[in-house]
């Protein structure tokens, strides 16, 4: 695995994403759902909302880095609020 140049932070990052994916896969199997239409006027399932959350979080982090440029962990708080909003309203 040396050639992949692993570090602890990136390993944790991928572990979190992998566990999210597994959790949502299990959820989707155990509790099938009907897609719903939210404020974006598109049909979404839980998985779609997770994707929107993750993609949006990446951009929130980049924006924070580019505009604020310090105290990156606070960007994660914005991401959590964003995630809650996406799961509630999208």
């Amino acid at each position: 695995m040396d050639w992949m140049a692993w570090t602890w932070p990136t390993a944790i990052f991928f572990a979190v994403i992998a566990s999210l994916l597994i959790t949502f896969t299990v959820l989707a199997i155990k509790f099938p759902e009907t897609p719903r239409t939210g404020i974006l006027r598109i049909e979404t399932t839980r998985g779609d909302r997770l994707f929107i959350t993750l993609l949006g979080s990446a951009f929130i982090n980049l924006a924070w880095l580019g505009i604020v440029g310090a105290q990156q962990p606070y960007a994660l708080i914005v991401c959590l609020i964003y995630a809650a909003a996406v799961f509630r309203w999208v």
Partner: protein
Amino acid sequence: MEKTVNQKAWFLVLPVLLLVAFSAVIPLMTVVNYSVQDTFGNNQFFWAGLGWFEKMLRSERMWDALGRQLMFSGIILAIEIPLGIFVALNMPKSGFWSSFCLVLMSLPLLIPWNVVGTIWQIFGRVDIGLLGYTLDALGINYNYTQDILAAWVTIIVMDVWHWTSLVALLAFAGLKSIPDAYYQAAKIDQASRWKVFRFIELPKMMGVLMIAILLRFMDSFMIYTEPFVVTGGGPGNATTLLSIDLVKMALGQFDLGPAAAFSIMYFLVILLISWVFYTVMTNLDKREG
């Protein structure tokens, strides 16, 4: 009662996932690992945190390349989509000439990228190329290695030559699927040619056109080989599009960290745009169906 979605079929995708893991996921993870470290070769890495991302976000070079890239994609879409529709509308609808046109139009699509680049590189040369020589003989100052405008015109015309057929073929397929009854109804209503296009052909082609726009956008956003062969990103940096800049950074300068940060942002932009297109497309389908 609405039907619940059964997601179990996704398990059938697992073998593909394994393949994609080796061709895309593992390399992408490696890129993420590179993006937070610095290296001087020898497979030795030093932690750099989010420094490269910050550097790239403030790098004029990247924003300039992104601007050029968006301009390139915008221009070729603005030409190829209407031109493709126009060609499709004027193609023979059936018989020998229809097949003949289809074969003729698919020819550019079969030519490998680097060959297309070489064709246009020679075609545009003032000393031996037909296009360059003719323009020069007409007294037009055309030199794509020195003149920015000439370089841009060359790569755009090249892309239009290479890919308009794809749009035309897709639009043609969309047109062929419209039942005759629609045209008969329009005739009874004495609809003008424009109205037939606006209210029958265009809405019916919407699905395939979205696919055409998506494909052309993605391809042009990632374009590397053709402009690289023709202009090499020059004159100066005038045609250095995103991927050309990225390769210069990663392989030319061996700046793996910044290049990795750059490619992750590049990837995120592509992911976002593809998702938007995909969502719009599937929702269009649902509304129609």
